[in-house]
């Protein structure tokens, strides 16, 4: 038992250490506690819904199973660098396609066995789908892009650097709109044709994890969150069917499976080449069990994913075309870079940064300076590369202590982003600690700045990131902010818990504004700053 606990802690440390992503979900640990073998699996957080199935599988095969959730790119990075081998025996993500493109990654993978599948599709509120005339007939990505460009509907999607559903959607729409019929070429991946920009123009909700995306969608649909309801979601067919089935939506979603093709996640459970023989054997037994017809049926019923085993369910009548997925790393990287810096709706991010006296010291103000430098380009890791300040992004730094200091705003150039990013890093490096902590006065100031900026240029994702290491000591208190927040349109506040910050108050700020909190007390501040990029 002691060894298991140590392994779990080590696994958590790795997950935190390699970059948050969707790693904020708690790990799963199932199967007999006295099992002679434990299979340690680095997994996508969407696999957590298999917990009951895995618990049964663990009992049936005598294997204890640990799933450590992590984001797509973080997982790819851990495999490519070999870090994954230190404390895992297997990986299980919605897809190995991006991962296998990383240099050196393929050689670290052993047998991969597909367990289930689900295509990434568009779910639209039924009334909106009817209004657009998309019910009961084939719809193409080109039609969807045209309607998006004309703002005839809005949708939410996960950040493609954090989650496979968003990533698959970007590949699908780019491949379909290129219209070539084969895998994207480098030139096509760099394309910024108007139809692509049109398609992404209608995205009004982004998230670093599927879970948050679904919750935010439901909260906005039911009015629990401030902010406009969103018309649809791009996500796995299985997730959308699950949302329809659980009755939390005021209006069901109509699933649009574009006629020109989809990208499907096939969930390959993959043992690592370096896994010891006992773990390989445990893997073999588990996979055999998971692919028996009864278990396949149970997976389909519980998760709405399609079974991998032929003949378990009737073949779907629709002949949804599978789009080719690019098999060259440079093509995929070019596509993601183009998406972030050129195609997606640009962001506006206001960083409200605590520079009070308690921030003194390398592990506080130093960490903050390094975090900003990381986002400005100093972080060259796989995730760092796609979570930098993006082309066209408007970044405002609002340092505060006893009162908000004067804000500095930067707009990052679309093509040559380097110099602007450097200016943000320089401004971060100049931050000096001293004074008290006026959290809510500073938040109000951030909202004032947001109002001004929105009035001047409305078509951006606008968010506030609040980082404070302590309690509010001057100016307005939480009650004051509560009254203020209730009376104005929402800009979500993403709160970083750091040092001695008041977690309860921060949770409430996040809840009031439709944001969420991120914990930098247990993970490095720079990783948390990077994780938040998936939401802004």
């Amino acid at each position: 038992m002691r060894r298991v606990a140590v392994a779990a802690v080590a696994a958590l440390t790795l997950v935190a250490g390699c970059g948050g992503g969707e790693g904020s979900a708690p790990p799963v640990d199932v199967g007999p506690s006295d099992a002679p073998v434990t299979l340690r699996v680095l997994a996508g957080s969407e696999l957590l819904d298999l917990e009951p199935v895995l618990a049964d599988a663990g009992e049936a095969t005598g294997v204890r199973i640990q799933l450590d959730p992590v984001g797509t790119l973080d997982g790819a990075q851990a495999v490519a660098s070999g870090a994954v081998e230190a404390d895992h025996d297997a990986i299980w993500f919605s897809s190995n396609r991006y991962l296998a493109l990383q240099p050196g990654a393929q050689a670290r993978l052993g047998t991969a066995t597909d367990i289930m599948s689900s295509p990434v599709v568009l779910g639209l509120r039924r009334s909106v789908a009817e209004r657009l005339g998309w019910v009961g007939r084939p719809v193409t990505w080109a039609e969807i892009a045209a309607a998006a460009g004309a703002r005839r509907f809005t949708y939410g999607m996960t950040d493609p650097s954090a989650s496979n559903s968003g990533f698959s959607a970007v590949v699908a729409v780019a491949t379909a709109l290129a219209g070539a019929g084969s895998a994207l070429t480098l030139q096509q991946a760099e394309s910024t044709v108007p139809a692509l920009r049109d398609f992404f123009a209608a995205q009004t909700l982004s998230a670093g994890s599927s879970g948050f995306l679904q919750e935010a969608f439901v909260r906005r649909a039911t009015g629990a969150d401030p902010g406009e309801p969103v018309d649809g979601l791009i996500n796995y067919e299985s997730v959308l069917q699950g949302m329809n089935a659980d009755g939390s939506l005021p209006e069901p979603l109509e699933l649009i499976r574009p006629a020109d093709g989809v990208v499907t996640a096939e969930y390959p459970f993959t043992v690592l080449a370096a896994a010891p023989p006992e773990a390989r054997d445990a893997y073999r037994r588990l996979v055999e069990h998971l692919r028996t017809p009864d278990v396949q049926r149970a997976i389909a019923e519980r998760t709405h994913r399609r079974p991998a085993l032929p003949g378990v369910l009737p073949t779907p009548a629709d002949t949804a075309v599978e789009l080719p997925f690019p098999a060259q790393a440079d093509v995929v990287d070019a596509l993601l870079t183009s998406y972030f810096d050129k195609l997606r709706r640009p962001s506006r991010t206001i960083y409200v940064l605590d520079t009070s006296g308690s921030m003194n010291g390398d592990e506080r103000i130093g960490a903050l300076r390094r975090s900003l430098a990381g986002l400005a380009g100093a972080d060259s890791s796989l995730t760092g590369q796609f979570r930098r300040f993006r082309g066209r992004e408007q970044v405002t730094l609002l340092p505060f202590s006893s009162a908000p200091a004067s804000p500095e705003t930067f707009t990052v150039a679309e093509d040559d982003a380097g110099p602007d990013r450097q200016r943000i890093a320089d401004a971060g490096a100049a931050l000096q600690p001293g004074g008290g902590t006026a959290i809510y006065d500073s938040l109000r100031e951030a909202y004032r700045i947001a109002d001004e900026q929105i009035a001047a240029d409305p078509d951006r994702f606008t968010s506030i990131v609040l980082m404070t290491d302590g309690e509010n000591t001057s100016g307005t208190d939480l009650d004051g902010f509560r009254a203020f927040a209730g009376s104005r349109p929402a800009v979500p506040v993403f709160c970083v818990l750091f040092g001695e910050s008041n977690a309860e108050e921060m949770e409430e700020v996040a809840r009031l504004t439709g944001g969420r909190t991120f914990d930098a007390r247990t993970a490095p501040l720079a990783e948390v700053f990077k994780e938040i990029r998936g939401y802004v």
Partner: protein
Amino acid sequence: MTAPAGRRSGRRVLSWLLALALLGVIGFVVLRDMGGREPDPPAPTVVTGVIGSEKAAFFGDERVRAAFRAHGLELRVDPAGSRQIATTVRLDGYDFAFPSSSPAADKLLAQHPVARTYAPFSSPMAVATFAPIVDLLRQAGVVAPGSTTFDVRRYLDLAAAGTRWDQLPGNTAFPARKDVLLSTTAPCQSNSAAMYLGIASYVANADGVVADRAVATRVTPAVQPLFRDQGYLPPTTEVLFEDYLSAGMGRVPMALVYEAQYLAEELSADPVLPADGQLLYPSPTIFSRHTLVPLTPAGDRVGELLTTDPQLVALVAEHGFRPTDPRAFAAAFRDRGLLEPPPLVDVVEPPSFDTLEGMLTLLGCTP
């Protein structure tokens, strides 16, 4: 207060049980030594082999295990890619290696010279597809009317022109904005894709087996798009065939697989082939000759049994492979009232292992 007493009495019961068990053991040993025991069959010899993964279902079949057990052999197999078996897999500790192609076996033989190898069965490369796709291919001249022959030359012309399904005249059955391309596995990892490379390069080389580096360098760029344009490719033929079976026409309209995979499904008690599933044969095609290279006497015995034991040969045929004796193959279909697959005439040899390796390197595969 009662707990310790209870524990003590528990301990006493345990002591009695242990004593009884000990008596039982002594009694058994005494009786055995007095000769009151049936003789056990000799413990089976454990034989381990590394095999091409498309044979995993055959070696996993309980009837196959039992047939070997009847000859005193307990088989343990590890599946691996045929290319890996020939190059990177460490063979010490194995009794035999059983790659899926003769080039891979030749390469192995060069490193592990043995008296004889066994080629107990083979399977031609085939195209698993759907009736509406076959109709379209007929209209496009790739399949001749009334035949199950897939004309590779015509297909390569279609592919070279970058034809999409929705550009085929009169296509209302499958108007996908997607290139007309055979779905294959990843050539760097999988033998079936390497065999496809053999077929396509033969045709691209004006009907000649690619035999040297110069020809390989000339021909490979012409066949590269057949793989590249598909994008990401599945690592094994099992995965590809399963996609064909479960995902329907939209995902895999036509897949290059081993004939045995399709036939095994057709011959199984509970087939899951699509209702409109069809099997075509490329012309030319290549036979994947599953060749067993024995590394120990026990491994040699496995090769011999697979070739000569009537029960094993019948099981080979039931798994859709073509045994050396054609009568067993015919019988498997006759027994199920199915039509025996046609004999194939346009069959070519695969390039040598080193030539194939050369072409794979040109495709960007690392060893």
